[in-house]
Structures are given as C-alpha cells and as structure tokens.
C-alpha cells in the first residue's frame, strides 16, 4: 500500500551501523559531505544555491550575525554552508512536513504554516525577490550594498515594509533568521558553527554532556571549553 519513503530508508540506515548514525540529521554521513574550504583545499561550492544566491547568503549571514568583539561573523562560521547543506536534506525538500492539500494560507496565523512551498522554494523566491527589491530601491543587489544599506534593507524586510511577488516576505525573513541561528549554534558537523565560535561566545561545552562533577559547585565558572561531535576541541 505504501512505499518506504526516503526518511524510512534513512532510518533503516540509522540502526545499521556507526557510519550511518548521523544520516537523518547531518549532511556529512549521507554521501556528499559538506566540504569546508580546509577539506577541499578551495572555496566551498554550493550544491543548491546559484552563484548570485550564494553571494546574498554570505552577505546576509554577516549582517544577521556580524563579526564583532564577541566573535566572528556569520559567513566566517559557515552559516551559508549550513543552509546549503540543509537544502539537500529532507528538511529542505519539505519532507518533514505534512504537505497534502488543499492549502489555506488565509486561515488564522495561529494555525501554523499553510503554504504550498518548501524551504528550497522559499529561499529561491525570497532571495530573488529581495535582490530585485534592492536593485530597484538601492541600485544594486544586496551583496553589493554598503553595510549600512544592507542593515537598513534587512530592517525593512523584518518590519514587513517590503512586499514580495511570490512568497510572503515575512515567511522568507523567518526562515532566513531561523536557519541562520541554527547554523550559528548547531554542532559543526552540520556545516556551520566553525571553530565552535558560538559555543565559545556563550560558554556552552558542546557534547561534554556530563556534569556530575559540577552540579554541586554553585555559581562557579565551568572550566572546560567545548567539544564537538567529531571530537574537535576549543
């Protein structure tokens, strides 16, 4: 009656052995690893995004999470790589969601997401619309604007002052911000949070996940730096 779907297949892999243990959540184990510049000896080649979209994502990541005294910016920590990786996952294809119709986007927002669009569509349309707006309003695409203009444009987007043709601008902004923060904070195995920059910033010890030795030391700084799933330390 039903065909085992891709998720079902991946789940079977999960129980099959250590190499596949990350299959559902993490790109690296599914065959095409998220290549870091270090690993490939060159620049990262996006798998889903076009060159123009990629330039947008890198610029947007640095506006949403700027390099400052609290650590490196969004592009340097790999947020664009993270989002690109997610586009190739079941998540990017909307495979984690119920996508049966009919669709009624007009219902109360409290009833949740009701668009017939998956993250890949939202990014493709959203970036296209936003860049078109930047060209129309400021004469150049987002990536080519000065930082102050980029910041102002992002505020306009957030505040709902920009109307897009084929995706609600608020929806696009919501995905962009949410996925950016995911890439900032998630384990580096997913392609972002390079050098565990966000974990160092807040003091999160990563996968240590064993605090028997510190539960009885109230109000005392924790002395150990973070460790990632792949064993990286900082």
């Amino acid at each position, binding site marked *: 009656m039903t065909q085992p779907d891709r998720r079902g297949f991946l789940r079977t892999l999960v129980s099959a052995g250590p190499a596949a243990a990350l299959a559902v959540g993490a790109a690296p184990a599914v065959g095409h690893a998220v290549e870091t510049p270090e690993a490939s000896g060159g620049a990262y080649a996006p798998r889903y995004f076009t060159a123009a979209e990629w330039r947008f994502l890198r610029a947007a990541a640095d*506006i949403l*999470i700027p390099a400052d005294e609290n650590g490196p910016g969004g592009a340097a920590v790999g947020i664009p790589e993270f989002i690109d990786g997610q586009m190739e996952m079941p998540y990017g294809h909307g495979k984690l969601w119920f996508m049966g119709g009919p669709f009624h986007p007009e219902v109360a927002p409290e009833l949740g997401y*009701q668009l017939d669009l998956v993250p890949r569509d939202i990014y493709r349309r959203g970036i296209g619309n936003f860049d078109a707006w930047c060209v129309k309003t400021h004469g150049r695409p987002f990536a080519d604007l000065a930082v102050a203009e980029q*910041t102002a444009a992002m505020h306009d987007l957030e505040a709902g002052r920009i109307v897009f043709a084929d995706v609600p601008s608020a929806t696009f902004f919501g995905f962009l911000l949410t996925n950016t923060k995911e890439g900032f904070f998630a384990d580096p195995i997913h392609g972002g949070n390079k050098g565990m920059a966000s974990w160092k910033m807040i003091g999160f010890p990563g996968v240590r996940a064993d605090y028997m030795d510190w539960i009885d030391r*109230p109000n005392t700084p924790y002395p150990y730096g973070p460790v990632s799933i792949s064993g990286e330390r900082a």
Partner: protein
Amino acid sequence: MTITMKKKDVVLIGFGWTGAILGQELTEAGLDVLALERGEMRDTPTDARYPQVIDELAYSIRGKLYQDLSRETVTVRHGVDDLAVPYRQHGSFLLGNGVGGAGLHWNGMHYRVLPEELQLRTRYEQRYGRHFIPEGMTIRDFPVTYDELEPFFTKFEYVCGTSGKAGNLGGRKIEGGNPFEGPRSKDYPTPPLHNGYGADLVWKGAVEAGFHPYYAPAANCSTPYTNPYGVRLGPCNFCGFCENYACYMYSKASPQTTILPVLLRKPNFEVRPRAQVLKINLDSTGKKATGVTYVDGKGREIFQPADLVIVTAYQMHNVRLLLLSGIGKPYNPKTGEGVVGMNYAYQAMGGVEVLLPSGTRLNPFIGTGAGGVSIDDVNGDQFDHGPLGFVGGASVRHVRLGGRPIQMTPTVPGTPKWGSAWKSAVKDTYQRELHIDLSGSVAAYQDVYLDLDPTYRDSYGQPLLRLTYNWHDNEARLMHHVGDRISEIAKAMNAEKYWVTNRVTPGAKYDVRFYQSTHTTGGAIMGADPRNSVVNRYLQSWDVPNVFVMGSSAFPQNMGYNPTGLVGALAYWAAKAIREQYLKNPGPLVQA
C-alpha cells in the same frame, strides 16, 4: 489481498509507556502478547549513542524521534464552525513514534495527582456551590479515587526508579517533600537529584515568599538502581539533553530502560515494528473485536486476530482508532449526543522569567529532564477559589533542562533579534536567566472536542483526526492569577528583572506554532455512566468489552501536573482488573 496471521491472546496497538506496562503485566499472566508498533525498533545503543545523540539540530529541531508528519498528522481549528487545516510542522505538541513511543524522549517529570483532582466536580460543587462551575464547562469526577490508585502510583515509581522525597508518608508530613500531596505508602525509590544553583535560588525565594517548595519528582534516576523487574538504571549525570532525546546514561525511565529488556526475552511476547494499525475489526454484532488490521513495513495489509485488543497508541491516536473502527458513538458538540472525542483538553503553559544580577553563573547547560524545585501552593484546590471565581490550578516548577544553544538562548523582551546587539545580549543573558514554569490545568468544555476530519487524509488514505480547540476565559484568569503569585518568588530572589510569559491571556487564540506540552487529554474518557463516557473505571470500552483503552485519553479534564504518573498508574490498575477479573470471566467489568 489481506493476509491473516495466527491468532494471539492479546494485541497491543502501539508500544510506548502504556504498551510496555500492559505487555509486561499480561505476559506475566501467561498470555501470548503481540505489540504492533508503527515506528522503528529503538534502543539505547542505537538511538542514544554518545556523542551523536548530543545533537540539538537533529533531535530537538528536526525531530528525529517524532511522528513523521509527512505521513500522518492532525488538523486543527479554533471553533466548531471553522475550517480545520493540517498541523503541517511540529510545534505545540510532539507526538512520539517508534518503539518506546514518547516514553523514550520525555523529560521524566513524574507526578501523581492531587487527590481532589480525581473528584473535581463533586469537590467544587460541595466547596463553592453548584453555580460556581460555568455553563459549557463539562468537568467530571474520575470514577476512581486516589486511595484506590495509590498502590499503582507506587508501583510505577518503583519501575521507573523515580527520584524525589515524600512529603506525606501515610499521613506523616515530611520536610522537603510536598506537603499537599496525598498520602504515600512508600517513599520514592531513589533520593532527590542534587539541585543546581538556579534551583537553590528559586527554593530560597519561594520559602521567603511563603510558598512550600519540594524536590521535583524525576524519573531521572539519582543512584544506581535495580527495579522490581530486575532491570538496572544508572545515575543521571545532568547531561542537559533529556527531553527530545533518548538517555545515553540509562538513567531516564523509558520502556527501554525499565521493561523492554525483560519483555524481549519472553517467549510469549513479540513486538512487531513498522506495523501501522488501521483499525480494530468488529464482528457482525459490532460488540466484539475480532482483531486488528495493519499495514506492515512491506506495505502488505494484514489481519491479526486476537481475543483482547488494547489500545496503547497515545491519547490522540487512541481516539482516532476508536473513531476509525466505529467503536462508541462520536460526540456531537451541537446536540451534545455521543461520547467519543468529548472532553479533549490541554495544558495552559506559562512562565515567570527571572534575570539575575550580572556575574551570576548558572551554568545553564547542567540540566536534567525533571530534577529541581516544584511548588503546589497554587495547584489543584489547595487555595480558596471562592473569591477568585475560576476553576483549576497550576503546578509550578523550576527545572533547568539544559542550555542547548538553538532553543535555550533567551534574551530580554525588546532585544533586537539579530546583529551585534543580539549577540551581546545572548552572551549576557545565557548565564543569568532562569525560567519558572507554570503549568495550568485546563477544564473540559462542550465546544472542545476531537472527530475525524472531512477533508484531509494520511498516507494510508484514512481521515486525519481533527482538533477543535481554543482557550477559554477561565484558563486566562487562572494563569493571570498564578503569574501574579509566582512573581512574588522572583521578587524575593532579588532579580534584576522578571516578567511573566503566559501563552493563555484574555482573547489569545490557541497557537500551534510554539511548543507548549505533549500533555493532551480526553476524547475517550473514563466514567461511571456509559451515556457520558467512553470507557469504564477499568478503561474498558462500554461498547466493545474486549477492547481496553489506556492513556491520558481517559482523563475527563486536564490537571496542572504532567500526565504520565497518572497514565502509568491507571495502566497498572486496569491491568490488574484484566488479570484478576476479566480473564476469569470475559465481559463487561462494570454493568452499564
């Protein structure tokens, strides 16, 4: 073509907490038991492997262990005349899937019930008068008392190795425990988990403000422990990855860490994963179940005959299976007729956020699923509702769940959501912000219910369950009061700032986009009268006596506590009735 399998004594539909309990009890009685579980086989070595399991994105955000919504979900609407639309993404509640069910990835907040909650309608009518309960509110008494259930609460706690401290041992009050709880026959099997700094501060603040804090009961074991089935648990190491994750330390009680190892060795037990039950089959009289129909992992439709069918699929799925099988008359909110789907309820979540002075080191990543401070002064009927004019109460707790960066990096309201200001706010707040949870009871209402959706279908072509749910004024007033009272604790803590974050405020609509709790109740409620309940006091269907329905679907309304302590106790109570009464004389255990 449907394949017919060899008959079993018992079929369990779903293998989570209630499936595990019934599996153990009925195999002990010598019966041949088959559990059909729609999801995958899951266990600690495969699904809690360290360090891969410490992955917030995979588990908390993408929901690796949850129900696959692409195949099956529910629809939601606010009012009886509204259009319902699918719950397309995980939000408000997180349904379990796979062996262990939600029991594999719960937090382990393991409460009983305040005795008065089981006789709620009678209690309010006697104390406040008949007219106190507003029109349209359909709260009821459970057809069972605290004293009857006490041995089964104890039993489930001992199976789980639950940590905590008794506050009332056989009527004797004990310091550090909950002074408001019903009398216990035994203390908790393991001592309370140690409290972290945040819990110490809340405890002190609560005492100063005149409340009665106690150690939150946690099915996160605090010492090495061997349960009555001979299964061993280890001490919780405060890993901070509890809810949404399987426990790599074998400390969180789950079917896997307490019952499954014993069951899997029994020749008279089998769990069949990847078996999606479509319906319970009835004979031509409609009064007897002959077995169940399911679809296996290869897509084959299979008829599994059985003498006894036990629905252990979780509250929402329990109700849906009854509706799909035509067991009991569906409830109609307009005529008030019918029973299946009635009295659906939820929980009213809120909180008081506390920002402590700069320099405070909470080390928020040191977390557990359930250990910490709990407070019942504003729960149940432990305070005078007369002048307040609402029904219900809230359980209040501070449990530091962890400091998982994607979801647990709050900022003070008004902070920009991105940019350098956001970065520095996150950094500043992480170590000094804590949350006091308010978990409010929700009454049952005539216009809140469950039925089958007329439009949307799952990947098997069956109608989805439809939730008709919205908040009512009673709960908004309850939460307002509780927010005010608990703010007194924040005040006593010398907070730099504190603020109330209630989801349920006057006029607020039920919002599925934000996680609130997976504490949904009702729809197949227990009662003393078949005209207004679905199952009797032993969770046996009034209509089809060889069908029993476990889980929180039996609650006539929801309480302030988390449900699973009561769910487990009711499962053991029902199992005893099946073993000692039903098997001797199969048929209705209560005469209608």
